[in-house]
Structure formats: structure tokens, C-alpha cells
């Protein structure tokens, strides 16, 4: 006869097989035929038992999806085994662009370019390819520019549970909006003169 398996054991094995795809509480509850609240409770119990028994795992939650991951203590060994992991980190350009999208979403390419002062077409493709952003329709205004927003993978990449966890932006001394007191008109021609100097 088969030995009885505890919820904890079953949950651990399920989290193991789904790996980085993670598991929704709802699906877990359905599988075990218990309520979502009870499923959450079991997840907490499992997490505690990892801690108590000194096992190298922990649970993380992102956008309602639970994943089993290793604890930071073992990461030096994992890195040693697989080689450097630097490649997984986003490039500076990708990071800047992604952060702007995260805060301003939904946002057009032109909006991002205005903030960064550089073209971002290629970076946007990279972020789309990595599933970190997705398109979110088009603006209603003339031109009907494409809009972008972040995805759930964005949350997971940074270990957030929801967008609410982004800290507010801090702006250095807000400018008074009195407009431009200095110049009635820009002197276009002077630029040519300077360049001849």
C-alpha cells in the first residue's frame, strides 16, 4: 500500500516539476481539492519547514505565482558550477528604457526617447524579445503610436509581487513653471556664426 503523502510533500514536488514557470495558488488549490486560503497556508508551512530544516530553498511570489528558488547562500556554488551569470542582467540601455516604461506605462517610443535623449527602437525590440514588455494598443491621438507596458515577467525579473512595489520617483527641486523669462526669441542665425569660429 502506498504511504500517505502530506500536502507539504505533494506541494514540494509540484513546485519542483513546474520549475521557473511557477504555480498559481488557484491551480494548487484545485489539484489538492482545498480552498485557496488553505493552499496558501500550506505554502507558508512549506516555506517554514525549509527554514527549519536548513534546506537550500525558499518560495517567492510574483503576480500571484509561486516559485521554488534557491537561497542566496548557495548562489556562489551555483555560479561556480554554471560560470558567470552576468549575461542575465540587463544592459544599461535596456534597464533605463525598462524603468521608464515601468513608471510611465502605457508609453510610446517617442515618450521614452524624450526622457532618455536617445533612440530606443532596438532596445524596445530586445525588451519585447525577452518578454519583459508587451504592446498595449495604440494612442487615440493622431499618428496612433504604439503603446508599451511591462509584463508579469518584468515583475519576476526584479522580484516584485506587483507594480505597487516600485518606489516613487524623486525629482530634484521641482522647477517653478514660470516659463522662459530670458528669451523672447531664439537667435537661430547665431549658431552658424559660432560654428565658423
Amino acid at each position, binding site marked *: 500500500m502506498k504511504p500517505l503523502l502530506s500536502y507539504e510533500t505533494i506541494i514540494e514536488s509540484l513546485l519542483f516539476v513546474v520549475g521557473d514557470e511557477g504555480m498559481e495558488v488557484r491551480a494548487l488549490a484545485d489539484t489538492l481539492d482545498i480552498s485557496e486560503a488553505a493552499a496558501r497556508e500550506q505554502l507558508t508551512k512549506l516555506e517554514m519547514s525549509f527554514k527549519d530544516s536548513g534546506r537550500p530553498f525558499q518560495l517567492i511570489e510574483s503576480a500571484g505565482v509561486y516559485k521554488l528558488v534557491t537561497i542566496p547562500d548557495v548562489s556562489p556554488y551555483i555560479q561556480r558550477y554554471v560560470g558567470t551569470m552576468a549575461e542575465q542582467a540587463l544592459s544599461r540601455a535596456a534597464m533605463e528604457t525598462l524603468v521608464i516604461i515601468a513608471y510611465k506605462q502605457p508609453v510610446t517610443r517617442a515618450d521614452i526617447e524624450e526622457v532618455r*535623449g536617445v533612440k530606443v527602437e532596438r532596445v524596445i525590440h530586445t525588451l519585447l524579445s525577452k518578454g519583459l514588455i508587451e504592446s498595449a494598443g495604440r494612442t487615440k491621438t493622431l499618428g496612433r503610436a504604439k503603446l508599451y507596458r511591462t509584463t508579469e515577467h518584468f515583475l519576476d525579473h526584479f522580484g516584485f509581487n506587483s507594480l505597487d512595489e516600485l518606489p516613487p520617483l524623486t525629482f530634484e527641486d521641482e522647477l517653478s513653471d514660470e516659463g522662459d523669462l530670458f528669451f523672447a526669441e531664439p537667435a537661430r542665425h547665431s549658431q552658424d556664426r559660432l560654428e565658423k569660429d
Partner: protein
Amino acid sequence: MEAYNVKIDTFEGPLDLLLHLIGKMELDIVDISVAEVTDQYVAFIRTMQKFELDIASEYLVMAATLLQLKSKQLLPPVPVEEDDIPDFSDEPTREGLIRQLIEYKAYKEAVVFMREQEEQRLELYSRPGDDLSRYMAEHVQPYDGPLNFSDLLHAYSKMVERKRWKERRKKTITRETRSLEEQMTRLHDHVASKQKTSFFAFFEETPDVSDLVVTFMALLELIKLRVVTTAQVERDIEISFIETSKERDEAVAVL
């Protein structure tokens, strides 16, 4: 002019460069002198050009904008009739630039925070999920699940990452052939514990060529140091430990 040893690709665009220059001048963004900032910026770009570095057009556009702002500041306003004033809302202004810098700086600071978050998250490893299709029942009906296209792309990009891991790991492993010193230590300990053994018995698995070479060299060193003696036995070498031999650390230290 100051010698710049920062390359232009250190910066994520003209605003980043401007912030850097303003920081170096120890100015508050809101108090910047357009003339001074412009001089610094243009000087930087010229230096980069002297080094024959490719400068992205965005940097040059910003230079032109700054020069325009600076010249506006130097020239007295030209009186014009109201009706002649075209719409200058797109023209650069000092305030506009400052506002842009303030906004950009706020995002740059957010990037620092996000980078920390990313680093922490990257320390936590998951595993690729198992292929569960063997558990699936046969369905013949159009798919109607909740997947987005970004989910597909994400899965694909994970796969690319995994393949790169694998490649890198292969390279790392082949590169890490043991050094002569390490192998001398291992061989010393091995023979010392067995007293008598053979060359091929030392290997637990079939050695590759570089393993063989390094181990053989280690053996020669140990013979030279009178730690072991050897004798040819058919196609193997019998290795015997010499009781009065040097300690391991001493032996390796001669290298």
C-alpha cells in the same frame, strides 16, 4: 582643457553626459549656467572626435541645442511684431533642458534601485520546468488559454539563456584542467595513502589527453624529488611511495 579619460560609450546618451559634467562642476541642476555647461560639453565632444571615436548623432544634436541656448543668452532679444512670432513651443529653452535633466536624473536613480533588486533576484535560481506533456490527456480542440505572446517570447528567451549557460559551462570545464601543482598534491596524497599503486589506477574515470599529460608531468616531478619510485609493469607504471620522502607541502613548494 581638461584631459578626459572617459569614453563616450560610458554614457547612455547626451543627457547622461550632461549630468556627468554638471556633477563634475559641482553644480545644482537648477542653477546651471548654460554657457559653462555648453563649453564643457562641446569640449568633451571635440576631444572624443580627436580620438576618432564614433559619436552618435544624438550627442551632436545636443551640442547644437546647447550652442543655440548659449547664443540666445548672449544676444539681446530681437524686437519683432506680435504677428510675426511663429510657434516656438518646440524650441529649446533653458527651463526645458533643466526639466529634462531633472526627469532623467529621477529615472537614473530609479535604475540604481532596480539594479539592486535585479541583483538580489538573480541570486535566486529556479530550474527549467519539466516537460509535462507526458502527463497530458489527448485533446483535440482549439487552444483557448490565457497566454500572451510575451509569455511565448519569454519562454524562448529563457531557452536561449539556458543554451548559453550550457555552452559556457562546457567551456569552463574544459578550460579547468588541473594545474601541475594541484596534480602533484593529489598524486602525492594518493600514493602516500596506498603506498603502492599504478599510474592508471590513479584515475577514477578515463582521463583525457591533458589530464594524462599533467599527471605524467606530476609523476616525473615526484620521481625527481625522490617522493616515489616507479617501475614499468606491462602497459602501466607501478608507483611506490618512499617512506623517507618529503612532506606534501614541501614537495610542491619546490615548483
